[in-house]
Structures are given as structure tokens and as C-alpha cells.
């Protein structure tokens, strides 16, 4: 069956901010919101805010992020904001190739969405 697109590729979630949900589409291909979501290229974002950095069991984090985690034990909203803005700038050598979100409001919405949706 051919399904021509008329909606966003990711399923919508009820009760969350539209802007944050839209911003999450930039993470969607590599990161699930559910725990134990299977083999995607990135670790799950389930309860990512406040979670220990580089701590998902069995995930092959880059050496750069492991080094970063030794100095910064948890993903605070502030750290997440800086990482989402420019991953390479905060963690040089990270394997996350995401180009970043430059708009501060969009980042706030995303982090809020991640807090609520996972």
C-alpha cells in the first residue's frame, strides 16, 4: 500500500505543547521517548531531564560524551539547552551529528516537551 504523506511522520502526542512536539521531530529519527524502544541510533529520551549523562545500559556512547559525563553527571535543563543548541560546541567529538537548534524559544519548548512527554 502506498501512503502519500499528509501528516507528520511521527505520531502526535496529546496534551503537550505543539511547538515542543514539532521541535521533537528533529530528534525523532534517532531518539524514542519510550524506555526500551529498541535499536535506534540514539539513546532513548525517556526522562532525559535530570537523567545521568551517558548512562543508558548497553548504549555505545562516544568517548567524548563519556568524558563529558565525568564532569557533568546529569542532564540539567541548562546543559540540555546548550547541547541542543550546538552539540559539537558543548561536546566536541560527540557522535550526534545533529546540526542544532538556534532558536532559544524552540529549545525551551523542546525541553519542556521532553519533560512532559516522557
Amino acid at each position, binding site marked *: 500500500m502506498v501512503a502519500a504523506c499528509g501528516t507528520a511522520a511521527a505520531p502526535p502526542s496529546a496534551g503537550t505543547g505543539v511547538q515542543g512536539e514539532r521541535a521533537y521531530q528533529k530528534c525523532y*529519527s534517532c531518539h524514542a521517548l519510550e524506555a526500551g524502544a529498541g535499536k535506534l541510533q540514539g539513546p532513548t529520551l525517556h526522562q532525559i531531564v535530570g537523567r545521568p549523562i551517558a548512562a543508558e545500559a548497553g548504549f555505545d556512547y562516544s568517548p567524548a560524551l563519556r568524558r563529558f559525563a565525568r564532569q557533568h553527571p546529569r542532564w540539567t535543563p541548562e546543559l540540555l539547552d546548550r547541547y541542543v543548541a550546538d552539540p559539537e560546541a558543548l561536546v566536541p*567529538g560527540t557522535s550526534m551529528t545533529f546540526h542544532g537548534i538556534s532558536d532559544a524559544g524552540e529549545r525551551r519548548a523542546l525541553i519542556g516537551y521532553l519533560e512532559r512527554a516522557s
Partner: protein
Amino acid sequence: MSILRIVAVAGSLMLAGPACAAQAPETEQSSPDAPEKVANTQVFQLPEGARVHDVAPAPDGTIWYTAQRQGALGILDPKSGKIRHVPLGEGSAPHGVIQGPDGAAWITDSGLNAIVRFDPKTEKLDVWKLPEDVGYANLNTGAFDGDGIHWFTGQNGIYGRLDPKTGAMRVFKDPEGRGPYGIDATPSGDIYYVSLAGSHLAKIDRATGAATIIEPPTPAQGARRVWADSKSNLWVSEWNSGNLSRYTPATGDWKMWKLPGEAPKAYAVYVDERDIVWVSDFGANATFAFDPKTESWTKYPGSGEGANVRQILGRPGKVYLPESGTNRIMVVRTGSAS
């Protein structure tokens, strides 16, 4: 599976770039047990912060590359070492680039959520945004079919087609959701793509747009990129399994080879004009050239730690290895053509 021999192409690498007034002469490196004279390599350092992702040969002998972090198309002249960037617009983050049948650069721009065409003669940029209701697609890679239609993938779970003559675009959902990544055309003009998260190969019906899924034998293998050889066999780099696999459409047969090393992670695949299969391996920080006839591997180490070659392309006699981790392009001269 048999690995008959592994040849390491070691030794010094030359760094060339705009800062170099003159290039050092090329050298040939060959390990003592090399069964044949191996190719030359030359490395070009790119502008700081460019973060090269994909490369493509341009008609005039230069090399196009996507400067993903700077929203630009890079143009490297390997003869002079000169480099320049063509900005693609506010918000651009280009992922893939190929040369179209019209001689233009066709870019899958994930930041703009658009297909971008750069005409090297006029320097004009054309931009085709994805329809609004598709949402963010995380555009990945493109390929032209035998009718001149541009097909593309988006990792958020889509693939699509763009008719360059009319600008008409259609977008389709992958049957299994997120993951569409590498895409290529066979010599007969058919289009196949692979899904990284979906771990499948798919053939597109060019008339209807329907995708028929072809499951590789290895479960959850993480098919990341695909390339066709001269006989229309499809070669797949399997990220999770570390396999290089081959699908033969005429028979439906699969064959797999585990990459050398203890923990291979196969990222990019490309088949050159001699049907030598090039596959990059993040685990070994190297790219391997695989000869299917002898089942032998020739190793090309990355030019630095974490070279991370995410795509491979070339032209007769030359193979281009964009190193996203070192922000360099390695050119391998295979000696098969001028």
C-alpha cells in the same frame, strides 16, 4: 564467508588545503604483504567547523561536499587545493549531495527541509521545500532514476520524488516508519533505499511510488546505505551487524561478509567502476575496499582519530572519503583510470 587477506594501506598522509602554497608529491604506500600495488591517497583539510558529511564528483573535476554545520555546499579543487563555500540559506544543514544528470549538485538539506539544486555554471540555487503537512523529515540522501526523477529519503519515515522539469513533488511514508537512509539507482534506473531503524531494503515502484520491502537475512542489522554494482546487485552496509551484504534481485539471494576487526560498524558503501566495493567502518576507523571476486579486503585507515567516513563516492580512478570527524576529504587514486 572468507577473508582471504587484509592489506593495510598505512604510512604518512598528506594534508593539503587552501593554506598550503604547494602540494607535496604524491606517494604510494604498500605494506610488505600487499598482493598488488595499492592506490595513492591524498588528504585535504577543510575549513574549520565545516563538518563535511557527503561528497560528490562535480563535472569539472572538482569535488562537492556538504558542509553540514555551516549550511553550505563546499567546492574543493583537488588540483590546486582551493576551497570555497556556497551558502545555501538561513537554517541550512545539508546532508547529502549528488551530481544530477543535468550536471548540477542536488542536495538533500535537512535544515531547510528541502531539496536544493546548485547549478555550477550559473551558480543559481533552486529550492523545493517539502509540503508543509509532511513536517520535518530529516532529509537524508537522493538518487536519480532512469527517467530523470529525483528520489530522496527522510529519516523520520518518508521517501519522495521530485520531477525537476515540473517541480512536482510527492512524499510517501515508509511502510515501517522511521529510518529511511541511503538510496541509489541501479544501472537500469530502478531505485532502492534502505532503512536504518527499520533494518530493511526497499524497492520503489517508480510509476506508483509504492515501496516493496526486502528483508535482509540478519535481523535488526541496521541497513544504513546501499549502492548498486554494474550488474544491478545491491550492496548494503549494515551498521548494527557489521556486515557488508549483497542482494541479487534476479534471484532474491543474499550473501553477507563480516567486516574485518573485532567490532565493525559498517556505515557507508559505494561500488566503483571496477565493481570494487568500498565500505567505511567506524569500529576500525578505516575504510575497506572489498574485491568480491577474491573476497579480499584492502584497508585505508582514517587520517586521524575518529575519522568517521559517513558516505563514499567517486569517479573512475578516484574514490572520495569524507571524514566528518577530522573534517577532511581523503582522495584515493585507484589507478584504474586517468
